[in-house]
């Protein structure tokens, strides 16, 4: 029986099945008759991105259904999905969101469901691919659209030292605070809705009439400036909670936000690693945890 992975976040659902993988944008529109999800939901007004944990859990079955269809799954599957780390920890109790999601997702094709913590899938993926476990601590940062999940862990001691989900951070904040000021000349109206921001970042260009402005360079610069800002924030959190033991030798960046980073980081004696295909890092980790290949 194959393992189907669906990692739904605030920007998109990432799915993996056998050799295939794909994404469905986390947008939805309900017009009274139909519930549309994905890119087609964005084609008219009234569409919205998933914004809250409640929406994430509520719409999970619809997104999984669409992903299963997109993957052309045949036969029975076991399903691995993810929820943000802190929420997962908090809701992992009888009657909590984790067991109810597990039950809601079990259906005709899906015989068993495992719910894993997003933000830690990337750690599993990283550990699967290193030959030797690094000596010092490693800081994993999962940059999502609306959340950043950081985890300080020791690969040697197999221990999570500290981890937290930061809400209202991520690609959206990066775009509004760091990208838009850089491209304000190109945006005469001066405002973008969250849906437009997501779309702008996905496409990497802005179009006005016959002019098309490539903003990929600006996105990359804004991304690097934003990561520096986030690292300082995370450092403060770690100092407050862990103190002197908060040192790390290596930073792992993954999640959809990490896919926007192409440049070099001005880091001294700290190794910054962007995991390959960073958007799928959590999904790959979940697949490995669920026993899939």
């Amino acid at each position, binding site marked *: 029986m194959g393992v189907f992975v669906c990692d739904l976040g605030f920007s998109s659902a990432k799915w993996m099945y056998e050799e295939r993988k794909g994404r469905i944008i986390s947008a939805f529109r*309900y017009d*009274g*008759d139909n*519930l549309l999800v994905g890119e087609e939901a964005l084609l008219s007004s009234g569409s919205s991105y998933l914004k809250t944990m409640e929406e994430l859990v*509520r719409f999970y*079955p*619809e997104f*999984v*259904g*669409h992903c*299963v*269809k997109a993957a052309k799954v045949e036969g029975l599957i076991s399903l691995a999905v993810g929820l943000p780390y802190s929420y997962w*920890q908090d809701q*992992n*109790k*009888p009657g*909590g969101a*984790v*067991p109810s999601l*597990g*039950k*809601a*997702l*079990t*259906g*005709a*094709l*899906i*015989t*068993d*469901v*495992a*719910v*894993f*913590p997003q933000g*830690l*899938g990337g*750690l*599993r993926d990283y*550990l699967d691919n290193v030959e030797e476990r690094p000596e010092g601590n490693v800081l994993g940062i999962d940059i999502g659209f609306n959340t950043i999940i950081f985890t300080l*862990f020791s*690969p040697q001691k*197999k*221990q*999570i030292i500290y981890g937290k989900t930061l809400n209202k951070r991520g690609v959206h904040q990066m775009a509004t605070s760091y990208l838009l000021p850089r491209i304000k000349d190109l945006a005469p109206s001066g405002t973008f809705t969250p849906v437009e921001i997501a779309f702008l970042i996905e496409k990497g260009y802005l179009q006005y009439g016959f002019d098309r402005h490539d903003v990929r360079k600006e996105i990359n610069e804004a991304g690097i400036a934003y990561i520096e800002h986030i690292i300082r924030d995370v450092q403060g959190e770690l100092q407050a909670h862990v103190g002197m033991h908060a040192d790390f030798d290596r930073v792992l960046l993954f999640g959809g936000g990490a896919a926007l980073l192409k440049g070099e980081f001005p880091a001294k004696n700290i190794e910054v690693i962007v995991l390959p295909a960073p958007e799928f890092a959590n999904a790959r*980790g979940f697949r490995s*945890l669920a026993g899939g290949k």
Partner: protein
Amino acid sequence: MAQYTLKIKTYDPGIVCAFERLRKSRKQSAYTHEALKYFLASEQGARVMELMVHETSPVPTMPEKTEGLQRDVPPQEPLVQPERPGYSTDNIGEDYCASVLGKILD
């Protein structure tokens, strides 16, 4: 103590229609009451109730939960709830958390 729990999706067209008919009263409880009556009067609701009374797992016949996934498969006989180690209420919580976290860093 509630004996049964029914999950109502507020974007389910049938439920929306029941809500619509009650718009004037504006009471959430009345909405839910009407939505429940509407659901239980339907063929699906009767099936679910019957299954519950016979103490069989209703999951495989609850299409609202797995609508998207069931569309293309022939109707199944009611299954006994499959064993899902993570989701029996006995061992969820600390142990499950710890075992998953342990596996991640193993």
